[in-house]
């Protein structure tokens, strides 16, 4: 049975070589699912999300000695995960040969045929709308809309002011509403 720790206990265990791996294992168990969904909403494909999630934890492990607990564990992990996402999406965009007019069309077509997408027409349309947003704005929207994350926490993760995040979310909502208005 996996022992249960709180964040304070985990930080202490992380400082000691003998217990570091056990503590990290707890971290993986604790945070993998929530990080997965955040990554998945950005990259859409399960295979890509799985790769990025693993990379996130490997990166976290490699840098665990530098984590001093100034930020919350979750904040630190989210930061790594979302940076992995952005790096991945930038590379994908640079190497893909999609239509300039509707770059999201290709991705949505893939999504329709994805066995790990079970959304209805409306949810598919919403994903299409989300793909018209700049990546960071889409990230903000996902964090707020799906996870109901507080702006203060978002600000710590993304390094953007609360005011800017609120404005970004507001604009994202307006863009999506405009995109959806003719479809419903």
């Amino acid at each position, binding site marked *: 049975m996996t022992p249960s720790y709180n964040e304070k206990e985990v930080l202490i265990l992380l400082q000691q070589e003998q217990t570091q791996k056990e503590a*990290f294992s707890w971290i993986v168990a604790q945070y*993998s699912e929530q990080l*997965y969904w955040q990554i998945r909403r950005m990259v859409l494909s399960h295979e890509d999300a799985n790769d990025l999630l693993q990379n996130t934890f*490997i990166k976290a*492990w490699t840098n665990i000695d530098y984590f001093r607990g100034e930020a919350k564990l979750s904040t630190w992990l989210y930061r790594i995960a979302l940076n992995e996402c952005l790096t991945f999406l930038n590379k994908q965009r640079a190497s893909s040969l999609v239509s300039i007019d509707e770059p999201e069309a290709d991705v949505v077509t893939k999504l329709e045929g994805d066995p*790990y997408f079970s959304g209805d027409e409306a949810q*598919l349309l919403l994903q299409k709308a989300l793909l018209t947003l700049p990546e960071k704005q889409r990230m903000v929207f996902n964090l*707020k809309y799906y996870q109901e994350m507080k702006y203060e926490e978002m600000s710590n993760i993304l390094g953007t002011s609360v005011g800017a995040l609120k404005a970004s979310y*507001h604009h994202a909502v307006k863009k999506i*509403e405009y995109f959806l208005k003719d479809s419903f």
Partner: protein
Amino acid sequence: MKEEDEIMRKCGNGNPFTVPEGYFDHFRDNVMERLPEKEAQTLRKPGRTMWSKVKPWFYMTAVFAGMLLGIHFMLNLTSSDQPGKAPVRAEKEMVTDQDVDVMMDRSMMDDYSLYECLTEAE
């Protein structure tokens, strides 16, 4: 009323994505297996490289050169309006860099010995 209510009404905020069965159950073990081994934090014996041998001499030469420069600047900057100290300063002013060079050559002292002399004199 939240600003995203309209979107919520049309599309909901349910999760349209799924994962293969048992994915999260096995994820932790998969990741833990892939973690790279941490490099052992062993104390290394300090190696005697050429630089480590030359370093003390280099620093002493730099200190000596810095002191000479400092003395040179001070002699140029200080004025002669302190009568009590004037004779000493005058003595120092009479000794030029060239004189110092000649003295150094004739003393046949190496840099380290000269450094020791100067620091003892201080």
